């Protein structure tokens, strides 16, 4: 599996360190580029590994499907597809029914990236560049659907409800991708930082309290049993899945609310009437 490959890479490249260390993504190597050198970091490699993993999972789930579901994995695949389709249908209008694969892709990518922390790998979502890229993609989609009625209609929407509020509208427009990126990144990163801090603190405490035990008994950090695991269940499992869900939900809500549906359909009806004449 690709994840094993990621672990091997991590062990090969990670410099042996003792005690507490909170660092950004490791830089594996840099490719010289005309404008600026392109560093290939741990987060890029790990997100590529996540993409490959999801690709093979999709192949596995859809391998040998039949009209009448017989295999267990086909039931799982059908359940996933049905859930995302109903989610898209309840949160967006019927016009956006083709959005289900995109939403499922974002959700799966984000969830698997956050869950990578469970394997001891660097979670790509705790790097602002990865999440910022997704947020910019979503921002482009929002702007595209706002422009569906022509650029003039889009510019006019900034003067809503009164024209002198347009600077505030522009700021809130720009703030959308920034807040989406920071929300996801901050949640995952805070979990990672707190886990490291608690682990190091418990190690120090058990050294202080139980250091008098004879031999190697004094070196085992007994207090590290239990608490970091509970924290990991909350921060890595629960928070990671929740953030993936929230990112996908916000994507759907922003795109659906930015789309001027009534104006668009009125315009299209007018156009078809004109072309019929």
């Amino acid at each position, binding site marked *: 599996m690709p994840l094993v490959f990621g672990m091997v890479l991590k062990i090969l490249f990670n410099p042996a360190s003792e005690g507490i260390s909170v660092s950004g993504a490791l830089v594996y190597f840099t490719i010289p580029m005309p404008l600026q050198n392109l560093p290939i970091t741990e987060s890029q490699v790990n997100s590529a590994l996540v993409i490959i993993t999801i690709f093979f999972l999709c192949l596995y789930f859809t391998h040998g499907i039949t009209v009448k579901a017989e295999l267990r994995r086909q039931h799982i695949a059908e359940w996933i597809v049905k859930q995302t389709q109903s989610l898209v249908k309840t949160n967006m209008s019927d016009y956006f029914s083709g959005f289900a694969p995109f939403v499922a892709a974002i959700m799966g990518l984000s969830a698997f990236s956050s869950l990578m922390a469970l394997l001891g790998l660097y979670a790509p979502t705790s790097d602002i560049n990865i999440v910022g890229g997704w947020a910019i993609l979503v921002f482009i989609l929002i702007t595209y659907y706002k422009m569906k009625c022509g650029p003039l209609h889009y510019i006019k929407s900034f003067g809503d409800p009164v024209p002198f509020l347009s600077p505030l509208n522009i700021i809130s427009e720009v703030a959308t991708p920034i807040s989406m990126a920071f929300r996801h*990144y901050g*949640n995952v990163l805070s979990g990672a930082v707190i886990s490291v801090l608690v682990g190091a603190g418990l190690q120090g405490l058990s050294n202080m309290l139980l250091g008098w035990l004879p031999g190697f008994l004094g070196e085992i950090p007994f207090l590290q049993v239990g608490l970091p695991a509970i924290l990991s269940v909350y921060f890595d499992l629960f928070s990671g899945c929740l953030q993936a869900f929230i990112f996908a*939900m916000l994507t759907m809500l922003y795109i659906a609310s930015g789309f001027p549906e009534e104006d668009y359909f009125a315009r299209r009806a007018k156009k078809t009437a004109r072309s019929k004449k």
Partner: protein
Amino acid sequence: MELAIGIILGCCALGAGAAMIAGIGPGIGEGNAVAAACEAIGRQPECKGSVTTTMLMGCAVAETTGLYALVIAILLIFVAPDMLVNILLNAVK
């Protein structure tokens, strides 16, 4: 020189701590949201699912201001000291 670097490090730590005062706001806000959600579920237990989903969404949006503060605090702890000390060393040269 050591004094200047010490002041930089100490002020970065103080600033990070002061920035996290913003954690109070989202805490109160999310508490209110969850209280209202519990009330709604108690009144209408049949729409528990949609109330929970909406509450989680609202909590995530309310968390954003706290997360801005967190990002600033992390920048102050891990990024700012190196940068400021480098600027100081270059200025001394």
